[in-house]
């Protein structure tokens, strides 16, 4: 049940006419995500809030120049990342974003612990499950939607490396497309997929541990 998408065209028209309700809708929908993304770059809550506010002002002042070649959302978040980077530089808080992307996509980071599989020289079924994943079909829906489950996922997300976390939140919580994530974060399609894969795999593992403890 993904949050309903905003009707951007309608909001833009209203915003250009100075409609405060349209602005309130936009900030309610996007401000917390803007602050979180800014935090990735500036690394301090207060500064991230400021950058997000500057972004809204930038959006309002740029309204007459916005031609709608990108979506309002992509435009908004691109203004944010540009401002966050500039601000981080000015405050000497530059975080090595591209280093993180490299670190978080390189090396070995298996989706499932190697111990779950038979070894590569197993005579019967090398690399096949030693302990098969269980079906989650019988878990009651009420349990899925419970606050406790939400907290397990939330904690698993928070434990992820920075960029993996951001990619998974944008894709799976905010329902962004892969292209939108690549454009706004300035990462390649391949890296986007690797980051998403590693992130989702870890969150799945956290849920699996939680269900097996609960069982």
């Amino acid at each position, binding site marked *: *049940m*993904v*949050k309903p998408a905003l009707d951007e065209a309608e909001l833009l*028209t209203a915003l*250009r*006419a*100075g409609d*405060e309700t349209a*602005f*309130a809708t936009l*900030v*309610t929908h996007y*401000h*917390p*995500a803007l602050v*979180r993304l800014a935090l990735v770059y500036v690394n301090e809550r207060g500064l991230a*809030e400021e950058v997000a*506010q500057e972004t*809204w*002002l930038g959006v*309002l*002042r740029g*309204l*007459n120049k916005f031609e709608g070649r990108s979506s309002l959302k992509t435009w908004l978040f691109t203004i944010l990342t540009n401002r966050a980077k500039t601000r981080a530089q000015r405050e000497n808080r530059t975080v090595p974003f591209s280093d993180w992307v490299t670190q978080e996509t390189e090396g070995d980071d*298996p*989706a*499932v612990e*190697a111990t779950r*599989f038979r070894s590569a020289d197993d005579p019967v*079924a*090398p*690399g*096949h*499950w030693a302990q*098969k*994943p*269980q*079906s*989650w*079909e019988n878990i009651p829906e009420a349990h*899925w*939607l419970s606050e406790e489950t*939400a907290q397990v*996922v939330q904690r698993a*997300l928070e434990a992820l490396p920075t960029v993996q976390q951001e990619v*998974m939140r944008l894709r*799976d*919580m*905010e*329902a962004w497309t*892969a292209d939108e994530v690549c454009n706004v974060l300035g990462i390649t399609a391949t890296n986007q*997929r690797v980051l*998403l*894969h590693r992130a*989702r*795999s870890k*969150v*799945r593992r956290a*849920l*699996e541990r939680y269900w097996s403890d609960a069982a």
Partner: protein
Amino acid sequence: MTHDLACQELVELVTDYLEDKLLPEAKTDFEQHFMRCSGCRNYLAQMRQTIQVTGHLTETALSPTMQTELLELFQDWKREGGMPRKASL
């Protein structure tokens, strides 16, 4: 010629499969393995459920203080001229 995937290989292809980025041969290998292997079927279903449950999470709500500050920013922008009238046509 199809390649018999090991489960350990399959789990690393799940995201590419869900993103529809597997090449046709790899996709065939994936789906064939999948037909035979209940462990991997469960695994893929678990990944889908993980994605779904993440989709239910909501972003921290905007605080009333912040909402007020942002609306003030909007009123300031309107006072400084907002959008020139003709541009809104």
